[in-house]
């Protein structure tokens, strides 16, 4: 076997093994929580693919996942891990609803773009804060984004309980139904909204941005080698802050499409774990926009499947988090094993020993003996 073909076989086997391990661990957890494993897998992974109705529900969940994950991808490639999607999305929702409620009566072609812009800015602000803190004060974004998630969650609840609350809602923390001038139109008779098209266009745009523009080049340089980038005259602090601000803007946009396309009023739990799941989707998609699209579909499937399994089979809804956690752990481990040339060489050598012909072995033994005699 040549070195290159061995490399491919090695990587493929690691990938297959990783998938098997992830499935095996999930199966064990499912068994522990008392589910019939095969039935559960069927319900979670396959049944949602069996009808148009199910598939559109899956797509509906894939839209925000995809948008958030694209943002995570930009940030990750630029050297900053954005796990603040949850908070940024919440800020997007707050901003979107604010504009929607405050400027009622505007025509849709002004009102909707304004509301979306507000959501983008809200998310971007929540991305900018950890960005600037990292760039200027070296605050770990892993901690600051998580803290900002909690802060945003409190702001969210505060808004819902006070200024946004629907007086006719009987004390339920939710806003009134928004005016139709901020609705995203739906496609055909399905519940799918035009956010789907946004997501696909954004994927292409992200790809162009990161690999075809000098801006993307600089952001990737900042992410792949901050010291070298700085040495090369690239303002790393600026590009890192910019990247996570863009990332936040994406999450804010995801919040906007959820409100304008799905809920059409602000309620509790809109962010629904999309922020964290976006990180998983981005990693699962290989941190590449064209990988993120199928990855978002897959995790949309999982989210929907587990939700159905929860209501119909009594499987805890937290299984989504469990599976996402396992996915991250398995992916990061598998990546390291794949790129470990030392391990690869050792396995190749040991395999080589097993499949040497008898003649070759004799030759080696003979060489050894002659060497010893010298």
């Amino acid at each position, binding site marked *: 076997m040549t070195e290159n073909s061995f490399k491919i076989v090695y990587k493929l086997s690691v990938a297959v093994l990783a998938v098997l391990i992830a499935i095996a661990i999930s199966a064990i957890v499912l068994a522990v929580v008392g589910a019939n494993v095969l039935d559960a897998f069927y319900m979670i992974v396959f049944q949602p693919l069996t009808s148009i109705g199910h598939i559109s529900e899956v797509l509906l969940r894939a839209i925000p996942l995809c948008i958030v994950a694209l943002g995570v991808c930009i940030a990750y490639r630029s050297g900053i891990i954005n796990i603040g999607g949850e908070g940024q999305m919440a800020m997007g929702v707050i901003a979107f609803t604010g504009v929607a409620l405050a400027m009622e009566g505007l025509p849709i072609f002004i009102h909707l773009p304004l509301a979306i812009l507000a959501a983008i800015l809200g998310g971007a602000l929540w991305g900018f804060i950890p960005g600037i803190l990292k760039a200027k004060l070296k605050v770990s974004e892993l901690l600051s984004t998580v803290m900002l998630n909690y802060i945003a969650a409190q702001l969210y609840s505060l808004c819902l309980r006070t200024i946004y609350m629907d007086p006719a809602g009987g004390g339920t923390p939710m806003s009134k139904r928004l005016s139709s001038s901020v609705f995203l139109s739906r496609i055909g008779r399905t519940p799918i909204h035009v956010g789907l098209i946004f997501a696909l266009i954004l994927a292409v745009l992200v790809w162009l941005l990161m690999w*075809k*523009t*000098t*801006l993307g*080049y*600089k952001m*990737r*340089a900042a992410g*792949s*080698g901050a*010291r*070298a*980038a*700085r*040495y*090369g*005259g*690239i*303002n790393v602090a600026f590009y890192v802050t910019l990247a996570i601000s863009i990332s936040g803007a994406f999450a804010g946009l995801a919040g906007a499409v959820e409100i304008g396309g799905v809920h059409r009023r602000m309620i509790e739990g809109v962010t629904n774990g999309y922020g964290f799941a976006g990180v998983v989707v981005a990693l699962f998609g290989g941190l590449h926009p064209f990988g993120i699209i199928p990855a978002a579909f897959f995790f949309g499937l999982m989210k929907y499947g587990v939700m159905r399994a929860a209501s119909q089979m009594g499987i805890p809804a937290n299984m989504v988090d469990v599976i996402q956690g396992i996915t991250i752990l398995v992916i990061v481990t598998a990546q390291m094993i794949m790129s470990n*040339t*030392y391990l*690869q*060489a050792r396995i190749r*050598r040991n395999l080589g020993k097993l499949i040497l012909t008898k003649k070759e072995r004799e030759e080696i033994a003979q060489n*050894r003996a002659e*060497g*010893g005699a010298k």
Partner: protein
Amino acid sequence: MNRDSLAKKRSESESKKITSLKMEHITKRFPGVLASDDITIEVGEGEVLALVGENGAGKTTLMNQLMGLYQPDEGRILINGEEVHFKGPNDAFKAGLGMVHQQYMLVPNMTVTENVALGYKKAWKGIKLDLKEIRKRIVEVSEHYGLLVNPDAYIWQLSVGEQQRVELVKTLCLGAKFLILDEPTSALTPQETDELIALLKNMTSELSIIFISHKLAEVKALSNKVTILRHGAVVFNGNTDDYSSSEIAAKMTGHEVELPENKEPDMHGDVVLNIENLTVMSDMKVPALNGLNLQVKAGEILGLAGVSGNGQRELAEAINGLRPVHSGKIEFYGDEFSNKRPSYVIKRGMGYIPEERNIEGIVPPFSIKENLVLKDSTNKKFSRGKSIVKAKDIQKNAERLKEEFDIRCPNTSIAAGSLSGGNIQKVILAREIDREPKFLIAVYPTRGLDLGAVQFIHNELLKKRRDNVGILLISEELDEIMNLSDRIAVIYKGQIQDILDHKDATRAKLGILMAGVKE
């Protein structure tokens, strides 16, 4: 402390004497490299074996196998005729081996005593760590060998020379009867080097030594036997006294390598880089440069000699906008560089070969061609309207530079981080030189490279000098500095001690200045 108790301590701590040590047919493979290729070496009682070879010849790897840090794929190790298997350094210590690594293996935020304690397992009494006992042992050993150390000092407080002593004391405290020294003089001044050689010579009455070096004067001064490695294999074995330095050098590289010398007449250009009263803080927020003054002219190579850690890194970084300037000025062709962004400095024609080529000189996961435009991504040569990358032109540029600078790689799309050190340095050199800089700062440009690459880089630097480019060459290799420089400045504790004309510079003079002594 009297000698008797010391002798008693030692007899209970140590194994029997090592009268012979042999490594037979050692083979070790790393991905894509045969690091040790069927190597056999032998050392007898009281002998000093010099293990000589170029950077990357596999000397350190071989010794790491002797210490149990790596396991050989094939071959065996014999001590006093008996085969031994070292699973880790602990086994090697028990057998009486001790190694002083090239990069000192000392934990900076622990004291000397604590550092010795890491290996001194006898003082690990259950959950109690008997630091008093270790302290006593350190004092005994340092008095016995005349190696003065303060057991309570933190490592980060010590100078390089002091750390070297701590390393030796540490190794001896652990009961070494057989010392392995990996390039022990690389960070010392010439005078400190002489002292160390004298000290080691004295020790040979009690110890055997394997001494790794590529400095042949030291090899001649200290060793009885010499083994030369090239590309992981033994190419020569012999008695040191039977061969001259130049014979050994020729065997080391396998072919004659004549390093170029700067023999051309002085250019007497104008001062283009003028540094006055420069004060810059280190990472620890203490002054690393302390009112430094330095002038470099166009068309001259100014060599900056000094023990590393005296402000060289900070100087290069301050000039290139990578480190804030506390006070003072940096004038470059009339432009003020203090506290400017790196991009400002780059635009004004400054070229910079940084110290850490693997992480600062290149973006490791980026391809070679991407790295070659690191400073020019928005240049109109490589981008449309400063925003869209011109992939084809970047590719062409890379192909051209690959040929011109002899960068050995299958293609220019592979990650630059996967290249060897010499080729990485060529990528950096190609980028910096092809930008046609007005000035070049080269920091330790040949550290760790083989002689072929060193020759290449020296030639390129001299070529630039002929183009009337000023060059600030920062190096710890005195030979390199003396070969190439028109003038030699010596830096010590963040100040220029003195500047010598290259005709007046001798190793001895520079050594005294490097040690901080002013005449």
